[in-house]
């Protein structure tokens, strides 16, 4: 029993999960039962994948010990690249692949420069935040291009499921979250990511190709952000060059709320997903509770700090439980 308690207290996503449960109950009461209604859930689940997919990539990268501030810009660049190609008459799937390739290239550049020149990824990706945003506006020519009418929305944005509860994007999100979670917990690559972020000298001494592992994580992070951006654009029907602004910090907040450590090595994809859900729940719940929507950022900020403090406290409590290991 004690042992179980210790194990659970040490789970970094525990604080976020308890918060989520508490907030759902609070919002359900405050909104007079509207919060968990099918219509409202449809609203939350419909846009959750957009931040959620970004958070998955950011979480994996943070576990690897690096950081990506450019995801918000890549979120806009991927669909813009695709839209420009579509307008030029390129069919959807080649344009889609070209967009993802652009993201992969950005992720590679982020990783390569960070490692090759030994500079903090904070700096590299801060630069890339501006570069990618600028490129998005430049290739759009200042006006968002008109998307062709024939797009495979059935694959990404149509409502499906029991009572049309969620969009196709939600299925993508669930599948990718499960795959990313398995990647981190069950594969040797996941083991290398944890080792690289947890203690770089040890990973190197054990012969892990740490540079390649990090670059792969940067690329995964950028591609997921770009994919998320494309889903939003297909949902909105127009590739606005300004989408995703500020999301990079929300994504980091979600990962941190979910128990991912900024220092690397600690965190889970599930935690990041919980963090992303929390952000969407707060956004929605505040409005339903008729709280001034401007409190949204306050809540995110407060939660970020609170979750980290709570995790540290829980960790300490867990250490204090005297069970032999």
């Amino acid at each position: 029993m004690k042992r179980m308690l210790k194990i659970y207290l040490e789970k970094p996503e525990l604080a976020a999960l308890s918060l989520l449960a508490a907030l759902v109950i609070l919002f359900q009461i405050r909104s007079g039962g509207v919060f968990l209604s099918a219509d409202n859930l449809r609203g939350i689940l419909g846009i959750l994948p957009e931040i959620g997919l970004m958070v998955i990539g950011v979480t994996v990268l943070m576990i690897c010990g690096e950081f990506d501030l450019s995801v918000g810009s890549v979120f806009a660049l991927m669909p813009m690249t695709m839209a420009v190609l579509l307008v030029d008459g390129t069919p959807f799937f080649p344009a889609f692949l070209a967009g993802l390739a652009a993201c992969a290239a950005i992720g590679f550049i982020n990783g390569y420069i960070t490692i090759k020149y030994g500079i903090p990824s904070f700096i590299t990706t801060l630069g890339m935040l501006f570069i990618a945003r600028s490129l998005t506006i430049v290739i759009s020519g200042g006006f968002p291009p008109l998307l062709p009418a024939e797009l495979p929305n059935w694959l990404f944005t149509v409502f499906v499921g029991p009572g049309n509860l969620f969009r196709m994007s939600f299925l993508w999100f669930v599948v990718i979250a499960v795959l990313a979670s398995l990647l981190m917990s069950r594969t040797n690559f996941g083991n290398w990511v944890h080792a690289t972020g947890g203690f770089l000298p040890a990973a190197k001494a054990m012969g892990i190709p740490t540079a390649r592992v990090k670059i792969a994580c940067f690329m995964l992070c950028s591609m997921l952000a770009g994919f998320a951006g494309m889903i939003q654009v297909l949902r909105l029907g127009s590739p606005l060059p300004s989408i995703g602004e500020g999301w990079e910090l929300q994504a980091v907040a979600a990962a941190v709320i979910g128990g991912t450590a900024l220092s690397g090595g600690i965190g889970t994809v599930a935690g990041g997903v919980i963090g992303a859900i929390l952000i969407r729940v707060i956004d929605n719940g505040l409005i339903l509770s008729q709280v001034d929507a401007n409190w949204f950022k306050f809540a995110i900020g407060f939660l970020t700090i609170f979750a980290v403090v709570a995790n540290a406290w829980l960790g300490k409590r867990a250490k204090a439980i005297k069970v032999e290991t």
Partner: protein
Amino acid sequence: MAQPIISVRNLHKWYSGVHALRGVTLDFAPNEAVGLVGDNGAGKSTLINILSGAQTASEGEISVEGQPVNIANPRDAMDLGIETIYQYNSMVPTMSIARNLFIGREPMKFSLLGLGVMDRKKMADESVKAIADVDLHLRSPDALVGELSGGQRQGVAIARAMHFKSKVMILDEPTNHLAVKETGKVIGFVRSLKELNITGIFISHNIHHVFDCCDRIVAMARGEIVLDKRTDDTSMDEILDVL
């Protein structure tokens, strides 16, 4: 002497402007426990880093069991049967014992191009066995390495090296930061390598420790070997003299 397990010929290493190794030539016999001593900057760490693949030599040859080899990275060294246990040990504190034991050499259920799904049951079972084999008593292979004491961590590192059937085990200052009792355990372990038919290279600047467990002592100073004698044929005074 039988064919040396590792043979180093005329090894040089320059760091920008520093000639850290000045033509080191040295043989390690199979089954021998060699103590490598020297002051800071004497070149012993550089020599060890080259043998373990953490650095590459600027010049010189290395042979393992008579075959010339090229050790370009830690993986090459491990594949040759050279395992290294480092001072700031080679464990990731945020990972479990089982995962640490197999970093980079995970047993796989299936894999493609070197990536795939780990056999976690095998990892758990084998790590329990590996830890028991070095006389370390830990209840769970899922405990985080960060929760272990320094001595236990060195124990896990040693268990890892043993598990992968190394021929040569390099212990780089393994007794630093250890409690007295745990230090004794590590020294006992170096002594026991002989029975296991493993060559031990024990680096320390504590000469007492080296005398306690090594057959032969090699002293380095200013990038060169200044003394190389059987432990029985030398004394602590002589070694302190040459350093």
